[in-house]
């Protein structure tokens, strides 16, 4: 799995975790479908949390009027399209889905 953006801006695993846990507004995180395998794997590897914990964290942010959860897109193709259209966007996709439209910012093993 790889973290992708448009500018190939270097990003660390901790920064990705902060972004997807709502601790920073530095980039715009793009999410995958909560029911997808890559969603579960991403949050497990990058944040050490499961989908219920992520839902609780974002519910806290949402219901305290401090932000809205990342937009969930149906698949990696949609994530690539969103990342390619926004210089501030960050997404995660399977390594095999990488193409010329986006750049790899970090590899997650």
């Amino acid at each position: 799995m790889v973290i992708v953006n448009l500018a190939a801006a270097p990003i660390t695993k901790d920064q990705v975790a902060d972004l997807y846990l709502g601790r920073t507004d530095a980039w715009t995180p793009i999410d995958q479908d909560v029911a997808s395998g890559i969603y579960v794997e991403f949050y497990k590897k990058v944040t050490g949390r499961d989908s219920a914990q992520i839902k609780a964290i974002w519910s806290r942010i949402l219901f305290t009027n401090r932000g809205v959860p990342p937009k969930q897109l149906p698949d990696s193709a949609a994530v690539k399209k969103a990342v390619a259209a926004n210089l501030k966007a960050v997404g995660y996709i399977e390594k095999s889905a990488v193409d010329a439209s986006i750049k790899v910012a970090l590899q997650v093993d």
Partner: protein
Amino acid sequence: MVLKVTPAIAAWVLALGTVMGRADAAIDTIDQYVTFSGFGTLGVVHSDYSQADFIAHVVQPRGAGFTSWSATLDSDLGGQANFTLTDSLSGVVQVLSRDDPNGHFTPSVEWANLQYEITSDLKVRLGRMVLPTYEHSDTQNVGYTLPWVRIPIEIAYTDAGLHSDGLDVLYRVKTGSVTQNLQVQWGRTAVDLPGIEFTSTPSAVAVFSDTLQYGDASLRLVYQKYDGARIPTARLQVIGAGLTYDPGAWFVTGDSNYSRNKFFGNLLAWYVSGGVRLGHFAPYAIYSTTRALSDGTSGLKSLGNDHTMAAGVRWDFAKNLDAKLQLQQVTIDSLDDSASFADIGPSARIGDKANVLSLTLDFVF
């Protein structure tokens, strides 16, 4: 077993049915300008102590005790609409129905403000905001966001307002690996407690709060000052500090609040809690207490004093739903409005213990 079934409870059951029937993601997007979301809790509480009513929130006038079971303490239902007006201007309205100081479930507006984003780190809000008084004070009604059935009631025994109508400025500043979330707020608030004598006229409130985040650790600091209320309840200062470490697989958290109040006396409340996450289950334990440090001009002695030991488990059994079970023992340390109780009877004695069982079902949609 006496359970009061109110129209509000019927509404929760309907809402719950809606949640369970939905296969789709959390937020329902009608179009790109408005998103709707909601939350709720359905809960029952049993107390074996008949000399006083165990309550879940300081404003509640009745609870579980004399009529051993209560379905009104933890149950609530809320809905929120987020409006995106332009790239930098947004709005929010949140309406909540829960047991209030009058013993009704009259819906109230918790949040209603317009936010202008000057930069991604600097935001100004105008309207109604929930006050940041203690950790989780701003999501205490959203059971799904809490590791426990409810926040320890002792920490909320401050007489602070619940929300203010005014202006606030949010500023996020990053220094090395530490992110600070600074908040300054000015507004007017009213403190409403059970009993006609404790319905205050609005007072001015000023708030300064800072949450420092360092990876999975966060430190919360808050100062609130209330002025100008016509009843003594709201003339107070609150200083709070809390620390949380939550790397995902387990958590520890502690919070404290010191309130200075000439009329009711000065109080110190605190709790510590920890838990582990084992798959879909997250068992936890809490110790919480509040102590009067002085007697105020009201003449009430040791106001609020009690302490609680609690243990429970959260079970994330389905998407956007959790169930919790909590057992706690509360010891009355004062007969003058012990924090966890309402309606303390003449046979109650200091040192009496209440064993309380709580079951809740939380949902978000």
